[in-house]
Structure formats: structure tokens, C-alpha cells
């Protein structure tokens, strides 16, 4: 598959999860998804997208997690696969894939900021952006800044220490750069997503929103591999992508 920029796939989780979806997931060996629903959907969608993007069968995907918690994939011969990142909130799932470089994706529902988080995470110029706002506007701006910061921390692979030790300024807008990463940010119903990537050229991502029913259909055959979901569960369990 030939792509220039990263691919970001988003899907909105049903709320509440329908009985039909629960039955379908249980039939696929997921048990009652409960509060892990978003996490399970993110992992299934990741495996599906990697299979299609890379042209390897699902059973050939070998996942591992770095000491810092950043997941990666190889095939059975050890050949490195595409860079990928996944995220989920209470409402949304996001998966990003790129042919080269490293990347991080984050999705988050709009949230009221805790002043301690603003103080510890954001640079002074970004804090001033937030301080100039109140109420819903502040919540939206905080969510924009947070998702960008988290996407950059995921791409960097350093996670919490980077977030909590002097994050340099992000600035306003829907596209920018932070250190060696390009970032993009977009609004969703009830939240925002952000992607950070250091791929050469900084090409804009292709952003695709799939209906949840379509995601379920795409992951239909995953149970066919005996390793699923154990391999993916165990390998990514500790991280959910570095954070």
C-alpha cells in the first residue's frame, strides 16, 4: 500500500454498548468488555490496520513493548513493521499508522482542567493561553493542548517524565511543530484528537472516521488466530502506548 503521510483512523464507541455488540464481542472470545471496551476495540482495530497496511497475516504480527512502554511490531523474521500508536477515551478510539519514523496519537473527551496539571505540564505561553479563557472555552483549549502534548510524549517514547518535566511551548492552532515532531489536532464530537510524527517531509495525515459497525465488521476474523487476543493483550497491556 502506498501512502505518503500517516493514517489516522477514528471510531466513536456506542454509548451504551448495545446488547448486540456485547454478544458479538463475547462470541469472539472477548468476554464481557465492561470498562475495557475502548481498549479492546483499539487493539483489535490496530491489528486489523497493521495487517492490511503491511500485507502480513494477523498471526505473523509479533508485538513487543519497549522499557518505556512504547509498542512496536515485527514479522516472524524480525523485519520491523510500520510505526503505530493507539488511544482511547470513554467515547472515541484512535489508531495511527505510518510507514516510517515514529508517531503518537491521542484522543480525549473535553475535560475541565486541574490547575496542578496546567502548572506542571505546560509552558508559560500555553498557560497564558489557558488563563485567558474560562468555562467551556478553557476546557476545549486545555483538551487541545493536552492531546498534542500526550501525542508528542508518545511519539518521543518518554511518556510521563517528558509531560511532567518542562514541556516546551505548543502554541495555538491545528497544526504546528514541537521539537522534531510535526503535530496535527482536530475536533471531534465531545473531544479532540492529536497526532505527532517525525516522518520525513511532515506530510499531512489522512484522517478517516469509521462507523463503529464497520470497525466490528473489519475485525471479524481476528478470533480465527489462536493467539488472539492473548498475544496482543499481553504485549500491549502494560502500555496502551507508553502512557
Amino acid at each position, binding site marked *: 500500500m502506498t501512502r505518503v503521510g500517516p493514517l489516522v483512523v477514528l471510531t466513536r464507541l456506542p454509548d451504551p454498548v448495545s446488547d448486540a455488540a456485547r454478544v458479538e464481542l463475547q462470541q469472539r472470545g472477548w468476554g464481557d468488555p465492561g470498562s475495557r471496551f475502548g*481498549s479492546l476495540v483499539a487493539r483489535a482495530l490496530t491489528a486489523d490496520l497493521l495487517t492490511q497496511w503491511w500485507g502480513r497475516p494477523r498471526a505473523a504480527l509479533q508485538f513487543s513493548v519497549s522499557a518505556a512502554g512504547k509498542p512496536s511490531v515485527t514479522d516472524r523474521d524480525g523485519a520491523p513493521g510500520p510505526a503505530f500508536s493507539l488511544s482511547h477515551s470513554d467515547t472515541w478510539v484512535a489508531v495511527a499508522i505510518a510507514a516510517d519514523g515514529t508517531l503518537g496519537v491521542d484522543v*480525549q473527551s473535553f475535560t475541565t482542567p*486541574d490547575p496542578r*496539571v496546567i502548572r506542571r505540564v505546560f509552558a508559560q505561553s500555553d498557560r497564558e493561553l489557558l488563563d485567558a479563557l474560562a468555562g467551556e472555552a478553557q476546557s476545549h483549549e486545555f483538551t487541545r493542548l493536552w492531546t498534542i502534548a500526550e501525542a508528542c510524549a508518545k511519539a518521543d517514547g518518554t511518556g*510521563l517524565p517528558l509531560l*511532567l518535566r518542562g514541556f516546551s511551548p505548543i502554541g495555538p492552532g491545528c497544526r504546528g511543530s514541537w521539537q522534531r515532531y510535526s503535530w496535527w489536532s482536530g475536533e471531534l464530537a465531545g473531544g479532540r484528537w492529536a497526532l505527532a510524527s517525525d516522518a520525513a517531509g511532515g506530510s499531512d495525515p489522512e484522517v478517516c472516521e469509521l462507523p463503529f459497525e464497520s470497525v466490528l465488521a473489519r475485525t471479524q476474523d481476528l478470533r480465527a488466530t489462536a493467539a488472539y487476543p492473548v498475544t496482543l493483550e499481553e504485549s500491549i497491556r502494560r*502500555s496502551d502506548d507508553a502512557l
Partner: protein
Amino acid sequence: MTDEIRQLIKDFGRLPVDVDTLASNADLYQAGMSSHASVNLMLAIEDHFDVEFPDRMLTRGVFESVDAIAAALAELGIKVPV
């Protein structure tokens, strides 16, 4: 003092389930705690116990369960019976 940790998780962990229904070694991320909520929780723990987590402890594993948080606090000199 695990009660204090559980109360902080209730207040800042934004779990979709009641933390009192979880075992002390249950994985809070698996229970639905987001990374954003984990940062809120971490900062609330620092304030409540008047400690600062060093960089080496700023890992996902330190905040993944009541037991893990208690162990981290014990390492920082805060006695939390588990």
C-alpha cells in the same frame, strides 16, 4: 492508609467503576483510568502525602494499582499498610 489512596483514586482517577469493588492489586488502567486521569491522580497523591515522585518513578507501573501506589509511597518514606 490504603483508604486514603482509594479516596484519591475515587476523586481523581475518573474510573467508570467503583474503586472499592477492585482488589488492591487490580490494574487501574484496565479498569478504565486514562493517562490524563493518572496524571491528575499522581499530582493529587503528591499534594496529599507531601512528596514528589522522582523521574525514575514516573512510570505507568507506579500508578497501576492501589498496591503499586502504596509501594511507591513506602519507597518515598510514607508508611502505607497494605
